[in-house]
């Protein structure tokens, strides 16, 4: 089980959290204007990165808040957590979003 550091409550067992999948997928500004392929891309296509992955968690049995985490999908190590709306650690340090393991 993962031990997840909630930015508000501190480290807790994974049991208290729900997973939200890939982070930083912005809802299109004007969904009606999208082609079917662009809508499918927003709705279904995912990076599913092997290595450093930016993802969402919700502390559903704690403070109830959403936040983002940078986690390695091979080692499961959580390298950083940051609040919604904040820049990702990779973006802040100028690296690209996707990183190879």
């Amino acid at each position: 089980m993962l031990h997840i550091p909630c930015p508000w409550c501190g480290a807790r067992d994974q049991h208290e959290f729900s997973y939200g999948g890939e982070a930083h997928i912005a809802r299109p500004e004007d969904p009606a204007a999208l082609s079917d392929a662009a809508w499918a891309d927003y709705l279904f296509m995912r990076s599913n990165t092997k290595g450093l992955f930016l993802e969402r968690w919700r502390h559903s049995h704690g403070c109830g808040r959403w936040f983002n985490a940078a986690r390695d999908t091979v080692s499961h190590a959580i390298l950083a957590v940051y609040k919604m709306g904040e820049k990702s650690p990779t973006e802040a340090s100028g690296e690209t979003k996707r990183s190879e393991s």
Partner: protein
Amino acid sequence: MKRYSIFSLARNALSRHENWSAAWRSPDPKPSYDAIIVGGGGHGLATAYYLAKEHKLTNVAVLEKGWLGGGNTGRNTTIVRSNYLWDESAAIYEHALKLWEGLSQELNYNTMFSQRGVMNLAHNLHDLRELNRRVNAIRLNGIDSEILSPQQVKAFCPIIDISPDLRFPVMGASLQRRGGNARHDAVAWGYARAADARGVDIIQQCEVTGILREGGQVTGVETTRGTIRTPKVAVVVAGHASVLAEMAGLRLPIQSHPLQALVSEPVKPVIDTVVMSNAVHGYVSQSDKGELVIGAGIDAYHSYAQRGGLDIIEENVKAICELFPIFRRLRLMRHWAGIVDTSPDASPIIGKTPLRGLYFNCGWGTGGFKATPGSGHVFAHTIARDEPHPIAAPFALDRFATGALIDEHGAAAVAH
């Protein structure tokens, strides 16, 4: 290929079984092939076999980064069934089941396919209604399926507890008698041997690191054993589908999760069928060695680690002990995980991609083993003719843009 038979067994017994020939060659990769299959699991090897047998395409290589059947083929709970709700799914899984029924003879390799029945339990009125609906839909597709009363469940599987005061009482079940188990390694090895005999090169310890392309057409692959040219690349890599797609500049609607399974210490024959329960989230059968083979659920998060959390195992074991009090004092021997490639509608993705000559067969998620022969058969057709097999056509990647999803979330043995 030397045929296996009672006579070859007797003959080799005379020399203490020291002179069996290798089941397949281990050739070095050639500079080019007519087609390359990435992934030497059951699906990839089956694809190679049917390419050679049905489409006479024998200048084919199967590239495997580890060893044959070392991924999900060797990590699943070996259940075979075709009791799916929707017509498209019924067609492909039943196609597979029919191939399973003659597979040992066709491959001259004992896949230990055992049609011991697959039983899905209902624990409340809603479960029972849902199972009735499914059984009716399945029967309309000409596939065997029936509803059992609690007494019939007890008669079919005597160790199950059907007392009405349980937390999850057994109110009935659906049963597919033609379902059952097969030996997972044997499926990979049988297809490998038969494909090799028809001229397919099976190359292990050869990882694909890049997909070469020129002007929208695939031209080859980069591997850890050099560059190999080919006009057709067929990717069948289960959990790593997104990683291979990224090499070709594509994104897939796939999310990779660990799925765990476990086995108990071996005991004498105690359960001669497969029992699944959606509500308590567990499924169990007994291997020929006597171990109980138990399947758990997926971990919530994405992973490529081939290991999951122990909390998932705890929940799973609780469920199994609730249903089968007789198992409570059994010790567990091993648990492991495979990385499953889940798709948004819990149905596979089979077919062409925007890149000419690149084909994907992925998204089987938590239940690909049962489909191995059918998946390979229709995928081979799709590759050889560059057009989808009629059974594979509904599973094309473009269904996520057209909206023609095949929602089989309810078809899993348990809610994954």
